[in-house]
């Protein structure tokens, strides 16, 4: 179908975008980033905003910066940039690996980092990566700027901590040198949304597992961290059964919903298997990096 009529503006700067958001707040304007989710929703008329504020001309939001291994990514940076960037592969290999699994390349040419995170699709890869990496998400509004930890950002399906007058402007990723990483997912056909995806980071401390970070997508109402499994891994011997146990624990509290693509029971089984695979890969990479 075609979208219903709407007012459209393409501001050139963040401050212009924020003024438009506040000026039209009564009309509940929608912010348009890459448009790879919002425009299909508008074509289906599942979303029918009367005011659309397009960020595609806001060039100041399209950047990648690296200082001391700390990576800062502008919200309008295209997903395709992530998989091709040497800085991202080096500074945030988990992100580079996950980026290659987002839909298909033509989608990644338009889809943005900020758009995916702010849209908060429960099955999307980038929210899980942001959670696992302890990303800081910068939100700007007419009231100023605030930094939201990823762990406080995702509240439910398509629901985030962003206020209606706020725009997600950048994603800050802490440096994680020497960390093993893995992003794995299961989808029914290549390039489709994952039924379940797992982001894992694992550090070694001597011959034991030091810190582990584990986040899931597709397995709950939104992307989520599984801290109980992380605690179980910390200090454990990598040779023992810790990874298998962590996989059990990660899936234990979850009740993924059944849908046309898979039963909740099957998704739970996938979660256990993919957590195990992610941790095994992350461990092997951590050992390789020594």
């Amino acid at each position: 179908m075609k979208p219903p009529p709407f007012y459209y503006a393409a501001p050139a700067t963040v401050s212009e975008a924020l003024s438009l958001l506040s000026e039209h707040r009564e009309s509940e304007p929608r912010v348009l980033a890459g448009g790879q989710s919002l425009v299909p929703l508008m074509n289906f008329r599942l979303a029918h905003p009367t005011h659309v504020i397009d960020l595609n001309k806001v060039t100041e939001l399209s950047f990648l910066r690296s200082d001391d291994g700390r990576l800062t990514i502008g919200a309008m940076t295209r997903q395709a940039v992530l998989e091709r960037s040497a800085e991202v592969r080096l500074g945030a290999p988990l992100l580079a690996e996950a980026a290659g699994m987002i839909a298909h390349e033509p989608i990644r040419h338009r889809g943005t980092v900020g758009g995916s995170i702010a849209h908060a699709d429960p099955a999307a890869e980038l929210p899980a990566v942001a959670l696992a990496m302890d990303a800081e998400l910068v939100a700007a509004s007419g009231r100023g700027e605030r930094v939201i930890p990823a762990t406080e950002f995702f509240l439910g399906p398509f629901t985030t901590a962003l206020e209606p007058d706020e725009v997600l402007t950048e994603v800050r990723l802490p440096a994680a040198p020497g960390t093993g990483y893995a992003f794995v997912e299961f989808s029914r056909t290549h390039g489709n949304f994952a039924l379940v995806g797992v982001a894992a980071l694992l550090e070694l401390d001597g011959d034991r597992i030091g810190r582990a970070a584990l986040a899931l997508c597709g397995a709950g109402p939104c992307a989520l961290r599984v801290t109980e499994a992380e605690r179980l891994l910390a200090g454990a011997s990598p040779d023992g059964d810790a990874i298998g146990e962590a996989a059990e624990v990660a899936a234990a509290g979850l009740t993924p919903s059944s849908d046309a693509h898979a039963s909740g029971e099957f998704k739970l089984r996938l979660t256990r298997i993919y957590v195990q695979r992610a941790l095994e890969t992350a461990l092997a990479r951590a050992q390789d990096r020594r």
Partner: protein
Amino acid sequence: MPETPMSPTPMSQRHRITVTVNGQSHEREVESRRLLVDFLRDDLHLKGAHIGCEHGVCGTCTVLCNGESIRSCITFAVQADGAEITTVEALASGAVLHPLQEAFWEKQGLQCGFCTPGMLLRAYEMLQRDPDPDAATVREGIASNLCRCTGYQFIVDAVLDGAERMRAGASAAAASGSAETVDS
């Protein structure tokens, strides 16, 4: 965007855009909600880009925007203001098919032809970056585009054959010192 007396309803809000399509500049007025694919087909009468699923899944509306493949059914025409768009019409020069199109013909890389414009542009983009891909790379690359007829095998064959023709064309052109003119 403001509801000024000039545009009392969203439908009356018009945008003047200038889009370069296949090397030719076009200036038009569009409504905000005008999809790029409808702009190309109905305003510019370029019927190459097809409308399939209209939600970014099937890929038959694929065009190149500043050299990169995008879905023109989930891009608004107003967003293409100032951009360079390439449609499948740019591949052939007059009655002479592009080597990639010849390969699709020879290898039967199409049956009904509905997905073909998207397949050609996607393949063309891939071959610009990697002129000599293996079959697995081609298969992965065209996974963004759906074909309900061929089972993909003949398309993969056609892209590999097209790659060979394009390489041969490029080296022949280099040998004779003439520039290839496929990219408009």
